[in-house]
């Protein structure tokens, strides 16, 4: 049985490799906001209030492109609706927490934190203070994201654009799913999702990001039925 502190530290360690992509992306995200001419305080407020990388960039780009606030807000909501799926997966492990703790821990459920903590949860179901792992991954990512976007806002994009560091984002997620390529059913689900995301890329409000997982999960359900 691991202590709370051990679990928290384990979470920090498990998420830290992803900072290789999160920190440059955060700097870019902060710098873009200022470059597009937005008030630096508001650009930073997004990192604190919304706390979701891709959705923050889309929000800024839509508004600077002349879209209405309604469209921008709706897009953020739709892009982030994928968290509903993360929550459904994690709910099983977080069930025992008090309502208040659930409210707090929800704030730090972001892509990489979900991915790493979910992997850990699956292997360590018997741990009593399991959620401290998620607090470790989520809070580490939160702190790094705040520092990275702030430095992008203050210093501008000191990450040379030629390096194309945005490419580190797909790479981080490749690192997350790559071991599942061993399983043919997961490969089918991944390819379904990936191709659907390209097919529906131009769907309104960036909805490809939730349409394609729904299609992929539907395929997963079909595969499960076939297996039996």
């Amino acid at each position, binding site marked *: 049985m691991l202590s709370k502190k051990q679990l928290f530290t384990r979470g920090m360690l498990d998420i830290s490799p992803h900072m290789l992509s999160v920190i440059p992306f955060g700097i870019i995200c902060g710098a873009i906001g200022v470059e597009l001419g937005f008030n630096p305080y*508001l650009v930073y407020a997004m990192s604190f209030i919304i706390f979701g990388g891709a*959705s923050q960039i889309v929000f800024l780009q839509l508004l600077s492109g002349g879209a209405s606030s309604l469209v921008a807000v709706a897009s953020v909501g739709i892009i982030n609706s994928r968290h509903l*799926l993360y929550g*459904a997966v994690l*709910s099983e492990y977080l069930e025992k927490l008090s*309502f208040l703790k659930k409210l707090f821990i929800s704030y730090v459920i972001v892509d990489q934190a979900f*991915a790493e903590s979910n992997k850990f949860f699956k292997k360590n179901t018997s741990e009593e203070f399991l959620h401290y792992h998620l607090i470790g991954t989520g809070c580490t990512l939160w702190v790094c994201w705040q520092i990275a976007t702030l430095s992008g806002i203050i210093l501008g994009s000191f990450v040379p654009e030629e390096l194309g560091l945005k490419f580190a984002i797909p790479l981080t997620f490749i690192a997350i799913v790559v071991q599942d390529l061993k399983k043919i059913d997961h490969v089918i689900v991944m390819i379904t999702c990936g191709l659907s*995301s390209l097919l529906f890329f131009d769907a309104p409000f960036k909805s490809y990001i939730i349409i*394609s997982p729904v299609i992929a999960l539907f395929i*997963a359900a079909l595969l499960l039925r076939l297996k039996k």
Partner: protein
Amino acid sequence: MTLVSIIIAGILTYFTRMTMVALISRDMLADKVKAVLEYVPSAVFPAIIFPGIFINDYGTFIEINDPKIYGALVAIVVGYLSKNIIATILAGLISYWFLIFVIFS
């Protein structure tokens, strides 16, 4: 951009994170649903990976010989064999840089 629209976007985002965690309990999910939820990472992350590789900043498809495709393939192979996140990201980035700065420049 107003603070109000950021706050509304933030509340919406928070609700996407909180709803399922706070409102669902174990017995509400049938075993079949749980089995499907096992696939969530594989069903969600490619929607970030594929556009990140195949679609450029202007929202159009990249060409078939784009260095990102090779960078991603290298990352998949290195990631699969090494099981190491840092190695996966660096392998993808370095092979991408090698192509854009050395080969295609």
